[in-house]
């Protein structure tokens, strides 16, 4: 199974310029682990000191905020995951 992660430009200096990343993660937790081990410099930007997903990091799966899908949501083949470092608007 493969999931594609879109990496925003603010993260790319920690990903050797890569703007997408493919992995076989089963859920958000393992996706963040996979990203952190592939790009160690990204790790502190994904989780805080307590290991929680950072407050201002937004994760979307196929246009849906992952918080509506549940934190234990299991990825499906071809899911597109988008990271938005800080939501704006309003």
């Amino acid at each position, binding site marked *: 199974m493969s999931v594609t992660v879109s990496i*925003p*430009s603010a993260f790319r200096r920690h990903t050797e310029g890569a703007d997408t990343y493919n992995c076989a993660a089963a859920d958000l937790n393992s996706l963040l682990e996979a990203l952190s081990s592939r790009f160690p410099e990204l790790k502190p930007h994904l989780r805080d000191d307590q290991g929680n997903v950072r407050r201002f990091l*937004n994760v979307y799966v196929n*246009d849906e*905020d992952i918080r509506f899908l549940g934190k234990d949501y299991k990825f499906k083949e071809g899911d597109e995951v988008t990271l938005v470092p800080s939501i*704006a608007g309003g």
Partner: protein
Amino acid sequence: MSTNQRYELRCRECHATWGNQPISFCQTCFAPLEVAYDWERIRTEISKDEIARRPTNLWRYKELLPLPEQYDASSPAGFTPLVKATKLGETLHSRSVYIKNDAVCFPTLSFKDRVVAVALTQARQFGFEVVSCSSTGNLANAVAAQAARSGFRACIFIPADLEPAKVLNTQVYGAQIIRIDGNYDHVNRLCSQIADKHRWGFVNVNLRPYYAEGSKTVGYEIAEQLGWRLPDNVVVPMAGGSLITKIYKAFNELIQLGLVEEKQVKFFGAQATGCSPISAAVKAGRNEIEPQKPQTIARSLAIGNPADGYYAAKTILGSGGWAEDASDPEIVDGMTLLAESEGIFTETAGGVTVAAARKLYAQGRISPDETTVLCITGNGLKTTDALAGRFEAVEPISPKLAAFEQYLEREFAGAHASGKGAA
């Protein structure tokens, strides 16, 4: 801060500074940025007398805003009326309630004219040719109108189901509308991605730290119009949650500059029950926001994932205030109450504010003798569909005096007949 800068961007969490550039979040920790000022310098430049001599618009507070050295101050935005609402006060059982009436903010009849006026000065400074935004309507109107006057091309992103009046009030200025199949949060997320890739000046994405500062002028005006003193309470509608935090920031700046006496103002937030992520957090005593799927007639407040929700909840709880929310029928009642008691026709968001205030008074969270300001942020002419079916269709009568007499008899059951023949 370098010596020739009076302001710069600073991270709200790690406090790293980023000079002045079109970015909205810290490039190190990804938390939101806000504008920090050189207060020592500003303190020597500003005075109440000097402000009083200036034109009655938001540019009178220019030292307190992030404006470039050269900027176009032709937008008439700001300095809207602060009116004592005696009749509304009778219903609310309040002896000192005021309406800050941004339903008549120029040029497009909402408080968004303030933030856009400030944002476009920076859009010019950064050399953008296209300005843009994600909008629930009022912002779309404000960007479209002010872009037209200032010579920018405007591309506006809106949820597909927006009120027709708000769509027309954007298109009339020649702006390009891009309708998105989805709710505001979908539109907003898309705009973050577009701003990441294309060199457009999104007023509420990459220009957001500057844009949001324009909301402070609501706070400065309230203080100045109360005779340079702060109210005891403010009630503020919340969508993204920015306005309430900026009024808080404005009051604190005035205290810091010695322009008003120190006072702990209580901040009360108002949301629609059908989209209440911030008021739900406040009621649970937490700052963390759980997003919602909006379902409310108050579409200008329908943001399920509010950018400043965390800071809004923190501001409210830290001030000793509270938050309330209003159902769709309560929102319409709030709109008609304000119209019938004060002659002010507000949009659905204003109905939310009035309805929430009503609950806060009833709960005793706001005391009758305290000076309380309700922030009305938009005009009812833009959301007339919310009142569809509320009033009976009026049947015409023939243009004859006899027909009118019959009408009087029928409608007023003879109650006004004694006035017959009076000059």
